[in-house]
């Protein structure tokens, strides 16, 4: 924690709670993410992991507690506001339009335009394809047919497209809900490699995973939730699978 402690964390939440009526999905949780740091969220089903990231990314309004970006307090009323501030969330169900190309997905909602004959506005498909090629190459994913709809690509490639979109728009914090859950083993590795790369580029990453192998492969720290509260926080280098499992199930 020594050098990172100098500058404020890019993301910090303090005493965050989210209640749904009587359900205390998240209770008084505090955590932080520094530049170039990968934080894993683990915990049993219903522990509150998804609730935590949705509260951070503006989907839910917190019942109480505060969120800070680079030391500044922020409140998000919509996911768009969080995205505008550089927090990109990649949901399990892959927020891609399957029928559009990689470039069209990267630019979805903010498509570049150009003018034909100087006056007819048309989509700048070349700019989209160029950005797609450059972004995917940067993520070390080499796809040949940039015009093809993303439904033609594998799960890992699609995950890379979602990550690529975040990277293209220069997200500083990437939040991923079980990014490897729906993938085969080789593809899981590719995604883990991507997370390594995001880390190397100095971005902050929060990812939810049920897979301890993935967590130990890529995370710097792990935060274990249990019934909405922090069951424990460990540096990966200082913990073991056994200890994490014990935290998750509540054994001692």
């Amino acid at each position, binding site marked *: 924690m020594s050098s990172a402690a100098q500058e404020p964390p890019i993301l910090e939440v303090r005493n965050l709670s989210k209640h749904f009526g009587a359900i205390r999905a998240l209770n008084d949780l505090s955590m932080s993410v520094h530049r170039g740091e990968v934080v894993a969220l683990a915990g049993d089903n219903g522990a509150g992991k998804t609730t935590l990231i949705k509260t951070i990314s503006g989907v839910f309004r917190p019942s109480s507690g505060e969120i800070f970006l680079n030391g500044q307090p922020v409140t998000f009323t919509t996911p768009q506001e969080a995205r505008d501030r550089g927090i990109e969330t990649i949901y399990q169900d892959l927020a*891609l*339009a399957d029928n559009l190309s990689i470039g069209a997905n990267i630019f979805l909602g903010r498509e570049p335009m150009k003018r034909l004959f100087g006056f007819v506005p048309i989509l700048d498909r070349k700019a989209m394809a160029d950005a797609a090629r450059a972004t995917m190459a940067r993520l070390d994913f080499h796809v040949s*047919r940039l015009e093809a709809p993303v439904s033609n690509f*594998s799960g890992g490639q699609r995950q890379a497209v979602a990550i690529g979109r975040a990277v293209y728009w220069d997200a500083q914090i990437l939040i991923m809900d079980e990014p490897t859950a729906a993938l085969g*083993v080789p593809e899981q590795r590719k995604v883990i*490699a991507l997370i390594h790369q995001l880390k190397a580029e100095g971005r902050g990453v929060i990812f939810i995973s049920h897979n301890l192998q993935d967590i130990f492969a890529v995370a710097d720290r792990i935060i274990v939730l249990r019934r909405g509260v922090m069951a424990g926080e460990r540096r990966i280098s200082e913990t073991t699978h056994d200890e994490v499992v014990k935290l998750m199930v509540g054994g001692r």
Partner: protein
Amino acid sequence: MSSTEDVQKTGPQAAPRDHVAPPADHSERAKTLVQRIADLRAWLFLAALVLAFEIWARYDFDGTFILNPYNLQSIAIFAVAPLLLASGQTFVIISGGIDLSLGFIMGLAAVVAAHVVNWTTPSLGMPLAVLAGALAGVAIAGVPGLINGLLVARLRVPPFIGTLGMFGVARGVAFLLAGGTVVPVQGNSFFSTLGNGRFHGVPYIVIVTIVFVLLMHYLLTQTRFGQHNYAIGANVQAARRAGINIKSHLTRLYVLSGICAGLAGVLYSARFNAGAAQAGEPLLLDSVAAVVIGGASLFGGSGTIFGTVAGALVIAVIQYGLVFINVEPFWQFISVGVVIIISVLIDQAQRRFSGGRVDE
């Protein structure tokens, strides 16, 4: 990247699957080839149909079907209204919705156009009255379109239900405005001259339709509106998360579709020199059929204007061709119905083959 290597060695369970190859590229390419052919299926089908009628004509009475310019013109005129409705319907179906009110929006526009031409001819003179009538017809069609849009976008009424309600409302209003009968255009020969005139043999209304359809193609393929329409049809969540304003998009979408029907209504009243509430009544099915035959999926997310053009021509050729070979007119309904069902089946099969989502 060294970290990647580390990861690749982690985990005993990972080892046995080490050599699983990524999906081969050639299978992807094969997929797109199949998709390409599927995209063209309406044009192939059209060609086959034309060929069949041509063979019939040669065999039966030693004549020609398609090489006869009169037949070509008739088919083109036949296709105008269904194609205009279908071009709006294409946008709606791609977005994952459907517009059942188009037929009576067309009738409403035809009646209003005829009335306005009649009212304004004495004061404005013939050409300006025609302009006023055309604008009024198209504008009035935007109103039910707007209400459809608000119902679907703001009140979250399923498109099927909302536009079915509007089907009834537009029908009632159209018949009320028409006083229960046909509204003849009187004292303005210019209107019908436009509706029946030709430029080098090509009817004006066909030229207007071609230009409009090209504009719709541009809107669908070259603008954000079109791009967002595809995205919404494929994955509305993804579109929303990408920051697209779904409500405003859907509202504009149904207004657009109403306007297409409005133009069809105006051209109808110009051609027949009269407005009729039931002008578009039989065309709703044709509009959906043209879109589906043209390769769009009723599940949303796919479809093209040019596909729809082929679909509309298929229907026009079937209908005109069956008259041409002297078959009882009821066979038209049967054959168009069969073609729709076959097209939907092809779509289902294609989705299954290309790994798209198929409703279980």
